[in-house]
């Protein structure tokens, strides 16, 4: 295995065009290597690319760590960052890695879905910006070409003030989400609901959004109906971590509670 240590994005993407595997914080890639699932021959290490760690207004560089997002990020994304791994992992893991890995359980992804973020990518031949729902295509499957690097995520200039992230997992820390969710709500009632771990990609519960956005002051029964709709909209699977039935139920409960936090 050989490793390159580029200093600039240009150098990094040039290595990618030679078929290298990008390594950022390593919190996903090294797990795969440890489990023997992957054995990359050629690795391009991104930690020394300072440009990637830039955070310019609403564009967060791919190399920004969870620790920094925990301290400086928008509220719900910071809340999500706080639940990523352990402090050591948060100091290593990056938002770009979370996006490029595209795990259904990626803690940072529901926020990107909720605010309709775009993913900035670059290759040796050019760059493009991909809307999140065109970027995440399936379980660990994205629109990223082999020679493209995620360089950042682009958030809207104005983010809803009311936003909340939550996660149901088997313990308090270092846990893969059974369900994770972001809810945002504007003053005019416009509500967005995004969930992770309940579908192959991060997803929006659009019918639920439509229903609750139309209600200015949701009553208890509106909230119950909202939870029911969210549970109906998600499409989780059963695996050794949880059953589909429980994930569906927990998704509804979690979304309703986060909406409750936004309404307070």
């Amino acid at each position, binding site marked *: 295995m050989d490793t390159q240590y580029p200093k600039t994005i240009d150098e990094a993407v040039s290595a990618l065009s030679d078929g290298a595997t990008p390594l950022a914080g390593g919190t996903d890639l090294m797990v795969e290597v440890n489990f023997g699932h992957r054995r990359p021959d050629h690795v391009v290490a991104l930690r020394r690319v300072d440009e990637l760690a830039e955070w310019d207004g609403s564009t967060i560089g791919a190399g920004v760590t969870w620790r920094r997002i925990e301290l400086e990020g928008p509220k719900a994304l910071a809340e999500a960052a706080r639940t990523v791994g*352990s402090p050591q992992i948060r100091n290593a893991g990056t938002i770009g890695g979370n996006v490029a890995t595209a795990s259904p359980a990626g803690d940072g992804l529901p926020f990107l879905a909720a605010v309709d973020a775009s993913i900035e990518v670059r290759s040796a031949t050019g760059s493009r910006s991909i809307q999140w729902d065109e970027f995440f295509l399936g379980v660990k499957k994205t629109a990223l070409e082999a020679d493209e690097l995620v360089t950042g995520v682009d958030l809207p200039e104005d983010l809803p003030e009311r936003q909340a992230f939550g996660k149901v997992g088997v*313990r308090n820390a270092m846990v893969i989400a059974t369900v994770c969710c972001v809810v945002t709500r504007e003053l005019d009632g416009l509500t967005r609901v995004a969930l992770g771990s309940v579908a192959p990609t991060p997803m929006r519960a659009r019918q639920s959004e439509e229903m609750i956005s139309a209600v200015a002051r949701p009553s208890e029964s509106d909230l119950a109906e909202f939870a029911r709709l969210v549970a109906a909209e998600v499409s989780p699977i059963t695996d050794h971590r949880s059953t589909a039935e429980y994930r569906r139920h927990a998704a509804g409960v979690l979304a309703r509670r986060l909406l409750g936090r936004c309404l307070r």
Partner: protein
Amino acid sequence: MPLLTESKHFIRPDGPDKVTGSGRYVADISLTGMLTAKFLYAGVSHARITRLDISAARQVPGVFAVLTQEDVPERRFGSVADRTLFAKDVVRFEGEVIAAVAAVDAEAAQQGLDAVVFEYEPLPAVTDLEAAIADGAQLVHEGWADYEAADVERDGNIASFTSMIRGDVEAGMAEADHVVSSRYVSDASQPAPIEPRGVLAQWEGDRVTIWSSTQVPFQARDGVCETLDLPTNRVRVIVPHMGGGFGGKCGFHYEAHVAALARAARRPVRLVFSRQEEFIAPDRRREGMIIEITTGLRNDGTLTARRARVLLDNGAYSSDASFFPHMAAMQTLGPYKIDNIHVEASSIYTNRQPSGSVRAPTAPQACWALESHTDELAAAIGMDPVAFRQQNCVDTGETGVAGQVYDEIGLQDCIREAVSAIDYSQELDENEAIGVAVGWWPSFPGPSGAFVKIDSDGKGVITTGAQECGTGSVMTLPILAAVELGMEPEDFELVYQDTSAAPYDEGATGSQTILNNGRATVEAAQQIAVQLKSLAAEKLEASPDDIVLADGKAHVAGSPELAVSIADLAGVAAEGEMLLGKGSGTPPEYPSAVGVDCIGDRGLSGWVGPQFSCHAVKIRLDRETGVVRVLDVSAAHDSGVIINPIGASGQVEGGVLMGIGQALTERTVYSEDGAQENPAFLDYKLQTIADAPPIRVHFVEIFTPGVGPHGSKPIAEAPNVATAAAISNAITKLVGRPVAQLPMTAERVWGLMQGRGGG
């Protein structure tokens, strides 16, 4: 008997080494020319090996040795001798070793493994305990009847069986006003030490030195001697620092495989496990169990009879598990007063990872079942569960389930203290509850030895076979020596874990270090005390009987100014008759149990120095998701006089946290054919510091003669008994009936609230 000097809060001297990284573990040790070992595992749960060809593997560049069972003596080992070093003819679980490779590096070793050619004829995997004992069931071991096993009751897939009968259970049930039956099912779980094990072997001539992360170096040595036909004095096992064990590193594991590889390769060979191997391969997991209990009781709360049936998942091989049925039977009966009992317990072969001693084997699961059942009994007559226990638990002078009459014990005090510390009668939110459970655990007397020496500057070294896997021998033994010699614990260093240097000890197993090696260390130190007193008497012109050793000096009783320092005396001794002590002592005898008819008796009906505990746990339940959070724990323990409060409290806190994990999150999930589905920390969730609630520890210190030194009893396993049970009882208070499945995951609690499952 002198009491201990006022609570020596002696902090473990190996702490800084471990925290700063200067401490050396097996994986840190390299020898010149050292090769890397890797194992080829079965990968399937049950199959006949129809072809196994290693000729190509031996030709792989960089590969120095490839071994299978063909290359080692045919020796079966285990408490039922049902296992060989490498699979022979049949593989019986996915983590069984079929071949081993030693090569220049990990990549070459992997290429060697990849070049091993093997073919299987699949056999049906036995994974269901009830089906495994039905007529005509597929046998895990066709040749079970030919295996050697001293005093183990066996039959087909029943790897070991114990029954305990006392009184007349039919008559007892007939006297009852209520008969309550419960069925509980516990999943298997894992010891999960933070350090995956390592073994390094180097031969010089016909002698081998093995560095191993084992809790039991002498057992490891004896296993090597037994399976490779070697005398004990040619095999030296050394244990550097260990990153925990929790029972997982008890027993004899891979020392012989690595030694055999090193001999064949004519090079030192080191094996270091990956986390996944640590989950899948060792014959030490906490066994899954099915526990059925029926108890008769009167309206006044008197227990009239108990019948129980316990099935334990033995896994594919017996390791040390053949005493588990007897242990589980005692745990299912508990520290109660019941005269009429009939318990049957069977450990059943399956094609899964073998079960073996993990911290307090059988107890957390069986106590969880028994204590959940006990709350059901209290509920049946509308009695408070604490009052019910106060009425029915054994006290000093009373007779327990197996007919043993207990000397002074502190169980009732434990209940009082635990309940008071958690403020049992506090006002609780509607989603909060406090559960209470009692636990008990025996002490295991055994042979053990220690050497103590004081060198010319008055500093001491204790050379002992005792082990340190976090259990605290590094603290306790210096304290015990220091108390005898009027010195400070800091004056002593330990040389431990070297089977050629130290006398025999059973190791860090069965909570036995204080009890057995403590006794040996005290005896060795006492011999030096006699020498010191005689030297001081000469110097101070007094009788040796009048010399007192205190504060680093020897002085004449009543005249502290007539003194000479121990360092000066050591200087004198170093010129002639040196200060050397040795101790082993006689282990305490097991007390008799009266009136118990026991088939498959493993000698566990009468307990030496029984330890008692009561844990009280306050939880909050999220009724919508089933998520349980533990808010507060109080744990009261009768482990006799406490030698080292910091060490003992640490054991209780760790035991409680481990118990919370067992209660709520820790489970090995098996596929239908017996493979582990979550052999990684990604999906096997221990409790972390972020989950840890406040844990209030209280010791009911009763001077207990005839067990450990200074009236002490052991402590390491007892805290891992009652926590899951207490959490279960708290959950039951909120949801109306026991979850009856362990762990009590959020999903299971939620399912119960949806009307599914439960006892």
